């Protein structure tokens, strides 16, 4: 039981990271029906820029983290303005491929910095140790991951439920033409969604960096883990992203805990999320919370 609980707890920690990343991913999909393959790159940019601010000008870590969030959000905004705006109305494959191309461009750009090839760790900003929860050890970095996820979830749900801007964004996701007829600037909403996605990406980058250190490849590969999470949760559901992220995290850890022993070589946690992805597509293609689209001939 203790073992199971431990697995679930660490699953939730890992899942929080996926959930954070998935949140941004879903925002973009929800607003503009774009699947962003460059999300992992934004995660990396967020993490490395925080590292840069904290070690270059030696700013306090909290300030650096804040700057990183702002910078990445701005980058998301720019991406939409420069690249995606031109592709409105193009076939889906073009839009997907543009984000794939962007991912590569950003990778290249990061190689123009010293961060391309090596491993880094954030300067210490959390106290040593952690808390003991029901006999399970959780350190502060892991708590931070969960706290960040909760914080962003609350912020985004408040934003989307309460603020006029948030409601307008959901309206755009629902019906662009009708939103336009009411004076909602669809373009502004798209850019806003990308900025918000940049924000969450940076947040997950900060968390990953704190827990596992900074490595370009490792950071960007989280962008891939987001897919099982969002498919499970439903591509266009904010709460789905969070639930999907957490579930994938937990399932991944449970697979590692119980399946690895049965499979020679183990490593089931690498493939299990993708098996789930396929199974979900088979039996419940729109995920747990996703909305089915109504199609007309």
């Amino acid at each position, binding site marked *: 039981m203790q073992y199971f609980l431990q697995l679930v707890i660490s699953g939730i920690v890992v899942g929080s990271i996926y959930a954070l990343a998935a949140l941004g991913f879903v925002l973009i999909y929800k607003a503009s029906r774009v699947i962003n393959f460059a999300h992992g790159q934004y995660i990396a940019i967020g993490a490395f820029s925080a590292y840069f601010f904290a070690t270059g000008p030696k700013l306090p870590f909290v300030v650096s983290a804040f700057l990183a969030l702002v910078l990445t959000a701005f980058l998301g905004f720019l991406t939409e303005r420069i690249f995606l705006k031109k592709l409105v109305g193009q076939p889906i494959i073009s839009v997907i491929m543009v984000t794939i191309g962007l991912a590569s461009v950003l990778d290249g750009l990061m190689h123009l910095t010293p961060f391309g090839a090596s491993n880094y760790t954030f300067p210490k900003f959390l106290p040593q140790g952690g808390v003991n929860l029901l006999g399970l050890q959780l350190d502060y970095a892991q708590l931070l991951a969960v706290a960040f996820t909760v914080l962003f979830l609350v912020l985004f749900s408040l934003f989307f439920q309460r603020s006029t801007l948030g*409601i307008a964004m959901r*309206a755009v996701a*629902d019906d662009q033409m009708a939103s336009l*007829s*009411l004076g*909602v600037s669809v373009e502004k909403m798209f850019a806003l969604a990308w900025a918000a996605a940049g924000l969450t990406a940076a947040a997950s980058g900060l968390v990953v960096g704190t827990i596992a250190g900074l490595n370009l490849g490792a950071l960007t590969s989280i962008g891939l883990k987001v897919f099982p999470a969002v498919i499970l949760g439903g591509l266009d559901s904010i709460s789905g992203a969070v639930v999907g992220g957490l579930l994938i995290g937990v399932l991944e850890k449970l697979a590692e805990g119980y399946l690895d022993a049965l499979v020679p070589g183990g490593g089931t946690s690498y493939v299990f999320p993708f098996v789930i992805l396929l199974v979900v597509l088979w039996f419940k293609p729109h995920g747990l919370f996703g909305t089915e689209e109504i199609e007309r001939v």
Partner: protein
Amino acid sequence: MSSEPSRPEALGPILLEVNNIEVVYRDIIQVLRGVSLKVPEGQITALLGPNGAGKTTTLRAISGLLIPEDGEVISGAIRFRGEDIHNRAPENIVLKGIVQVPEGRRVFKHLSVEENLRVGANTRRDSGVKEDLERIYHYFPKLRALKDRLAGYCSGGEQQMLAIGRALLARPRLLLLDEPSLGLAPLLVREIFSIVARINAEEGVTVLVVEQNARVALSVAHYGYIMESGHIALEGTRDHLQENPDVREFYLGVAKSGGRKSFRDVKSYRRRKRFM
């Protein structure tokens, strides 16, 4: 024609003037070939005509919603309170005070009724939104009862009311209604039109309504235009139109002589119309 129709200017100062516009979609498909109409302030103006005549396109040209459909006004002008507004972005036009209720209602299905209404107020920076919400609920008491329901689960009539209420929250000077009767039961259609008439009378909102159902539209409109194949075929005050034998015959469904119409008569009517 028997008598000269009274001009729209006679009904009030002209709020919106569409002057001989031509609209082309995707750089090749011409839909409007010189449409002109005038909307007098404080009145309800109806734009009638059969399917495919270009009514919706005209409305979109006014509200700026042509642009996302890859359409463009290539000649002519649209003037709102003396200012050229054609080919402007839709959000600018909404800010000027023109709001369109799109065809097929297009409520935000996954938003609640009240959230739908709040989207309508997204361009406003003033603090009167709460009061206005109350006013909308006053005109559409049904919506108040449904305010937390997802709009997608509302009935067609409720959705139409919601779409109109939503547009009104933007505080338009000119409200454009595109086929509000579409897919609704006759009783509901009448209810909606009477509410529109009330709003027009009590709030002073100018209305331009596009309809296929000429009978119900002319029951509330002060002035009307009839559009066919991309241009205006006929115009006049409500009484003028209601008395016009062609309108009676083809739009109001009252036959001149009872009995069935032969196709040849229809053709001759169309031929005659071209010289009007």
